């Protein structure tokens, strides 16, 4: 247990901050601490969590992606058009088309980074602009509202009326989100490819000397990010019941902040799925709580920013640096000699 906590300090700190936040919100509002509100938070966060686990894989391998949210918009739009051309389609075709386009866009990023040696932040800021520019140019900013009926119908796996008359619902986006999390967790921690991604992000030269296929690392990480972006795009279209070209614009920074908040290291080699989930939930819970407390929506961004700052400071700084009086003699000596 001690090892588990030491190995996942960031995650546990985040969990602790979240518990404090939840207790505070429960005392401040009477509606926060209800099961139906918990399910609300999950439903709202599902798309961002799918994005986050995709981004996690890129971060672990030492890259970064800024373009995934607008890539998801491109996926939504093309998928909606393709389904229309197919005469409606169904869920299976929707997932295949969205996933394939997402992977394709991810591979473009990988090729720019690997073949042209452009650092990933520059490459993906470029593709962010190119994807978004092309989308707005060809769509002229027009939204699609006449989506196939199956796509906009809510899919509920489990629902129940609570004693107080509120409803709890387990919807498709949440189930898909859970599957994406499990798949990503399995890939990064149970397969050899996952360990190689960590190794490559941690020490690229060491990985190269070990004979790891560097090209494969790029294509797999960005390809996985693309797949998750495609799925998230489809889920967003399902959830919003419409395709708005600029609806996801700006999501990338929220997701990036939440992922790093969850312990993924910019620079590679570190990060976990559970951390991602906690990071996104942390932001969602804050917004949800502020909503319930009746705080002006104009203040949201400011408060969310502050919460992220506090959480990241607590989880990354050494406690004895923040509060020197807590430092024991042994930690002090360790600090000076290593």
């Amino acid at each position, binding site marked *: 247990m001690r090892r588990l906590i030491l190995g996942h300090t960031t995650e546990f700190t985040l969990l602790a901050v979240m518990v404090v936040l939840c207790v505070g919100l429960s005392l401040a509002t009477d509606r926060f601490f209800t099961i139906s509100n918990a399910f609300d938070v999950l439903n709202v966060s599902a798309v961002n969590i799918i994005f986050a686990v995709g981004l996690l894989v890129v971060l672990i391998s030492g890259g970064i992606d800024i373009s995934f949210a607008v890539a998801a918009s491109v996926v939504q739009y093309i998928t909606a058009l393709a389904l229309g051309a197919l005469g409606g389609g169904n869920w299976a075709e929707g997932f295949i088309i969205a996933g394939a386009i997402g992977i394709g866009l991810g591979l473009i990023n990988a090729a720019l980074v690997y073949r042209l040696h452009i650092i990933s932040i520059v490459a993906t800021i470029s593709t962010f602009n190119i994807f978004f520019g092309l989308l707005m140019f060809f769509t002229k900013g027009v939204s699609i509202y006449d989506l196939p009926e199956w796509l906009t119908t809510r899919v509920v796996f489990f629902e129940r009326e609570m004693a107080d008359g509120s409803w709890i619902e387990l919807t498709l986006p949440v189930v898909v989100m859970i599957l994406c999390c499990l798949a990503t967790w399995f890939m990064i921690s149970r397969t*050899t490819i996952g360990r190689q991604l960590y190794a490559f992000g*941690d020490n690229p030269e060491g990985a190269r000397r070990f004979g790891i296929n560097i090209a494969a690392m790029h294509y797999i990480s960005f390809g996985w990010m693309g797949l998750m972006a495609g799925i998230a795009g489809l889920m967003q279209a399902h959830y919003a019941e419409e395709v708005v070209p600029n609806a996801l614009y700006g999501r990338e920074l929220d997701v990036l902040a939440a992922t790093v908040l969850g312990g993924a290291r910019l620079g590679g*080699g570190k990060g976990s799925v559970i951390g991602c989930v906690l990071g996104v939930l942390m932001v969602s819970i804050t917004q949800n709580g502020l909503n319930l407390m009746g705080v002006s929506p104009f203040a949201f961004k400011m408060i969310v920013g502050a919460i992220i700052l506090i959480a990241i400071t607590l989880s990354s700084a050494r406690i004895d640096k923040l509060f020197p009086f807590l430092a024991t003699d042994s930690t002090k000596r360790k600090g000076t000699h290593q």
Partner: protein
Amino acid sequence: MSDEPLLSLKNIKVTFGGVRALKGVSFEVNPGEVHCLAGENGCGKSTLIKVITGVYKPQEGAEFFFDGKAISAMTPTLAQSLGIQVIWQDLALFGEMTVAENIGFQYAVNGKYGLVDKRAIEEAARKALSRLGVSIDIHLPLKELPIAQRQIVAIARALVGEARLVFMDEPTASLTQSETDYLIDIVRNLSASGVAVVFVSHRLAEVLEISDRMTVLRDGALVGVFPVEGMTQSRVTELMTGRNFDSSVVAADHDDAQVVLSVRGLTRATEFEDISFDLRRGETLGITGLLGAGRTELALTLFGMHRPQAGEIAIEGKTVKFGSNRDAIRAGVGYLSEDRLSLGLNQPQSIADNLVMASLDKLLSGGMISPVKKASVVSHWISALGVKIGTPDDPIRTLSGGNQQRVAIAKWLAIGPKILILDAPTVGVDVGARAGIFEIVRKLAAQGLAIILISDEPPEVYFNADRIIHMVEGRIRATYDPRHLSLTELESAVYA
């Protein structure tokens, strides 16, 4: 030892773009032997290792035998499958991963069905570590281990690959004496279990202690193969450099000279305590002690980067309180950092830019850096310190360790210092180039500069300082005059 050599190379020639890196070298290693490959930087040691591991192809006419079998074309994969492993100086380990994952990394790459077999990894890690006779918690993240233990992890990783011949490239460069001793024990264990070890090192003392035989290279050519028994450090240095360095004590009295730096009761909790000494014009004060003795911490405080909690520092009789190292630089204190690669020099930048980094305000002309002043400062110091360069605009990383160190010293001389603190100035510098660095130090002292020379190698302070302070756990244990004790006495005091 069997008569048949494990590895036998003859007539190895390698040419890079017209430069002959290896000029027909032969090299032999016996099974289970500890062999030393010695030579200065650029003598062809690493080229030879890369030929043996299949990274470079030798030219026509080379003979290559491993375990009695002729190898016509070596490749990195073939080298690995034959059990030839290299532990690189920079270790190539993964900091965020656990010890077990680092050691058993090949199981993480070649798992069955593409899945990671955690048990196989931990099993392999335990086996490798127990073979080395060490116990390290295999679940710890590597980055939490001290550098010496990381070295052991790297060795353990080589063992997982059924190593028969292990090259260790500068394995002790960043280790203290006791850690080096520990590593040497491990190398002995390895050799006793039949693994041949080739030790590549600058530190001659340990080479002489551990090896059975040594192969010396100079300028890409074989100088010879020598039994280590009966070899002395100065003989090895002579073989490596082709020159003869006589070391003699240079200590002299400076009692009449003006006191430049006076330190009284300087204390920083957990770092050092009650440090007092005087440093006079033209004097070189050596500070030695093991890693963790507080040498670097003391230097950083004298350089204004840390604030003392008690005691005082006076420069030329005036008490000073440095708010930052900018104040210290203004007061005439220069500090040559112990880590030249990452702290002392800005590797991608040019030689000229590095050289003037600390003295930019002296180059101003109407608020702008004057290119004329800059060029004259740069050319002055490059010729004064005998730095061998192409042009001053080349990136500093293109220079050898010794030449980089000269530029780093010039950087501080350009501020016109009264006091120069040299922290481990010979780390990563060749034996031949070391002598050059100390020549500069002596010349500077003769010109009246007060110098503090910090080193964990007692001979360096013994032969180059006027007085030696020996620090133990943050306190001054003793002050020695090199004229009144032998090097052996100093060494046994330091390593006691």
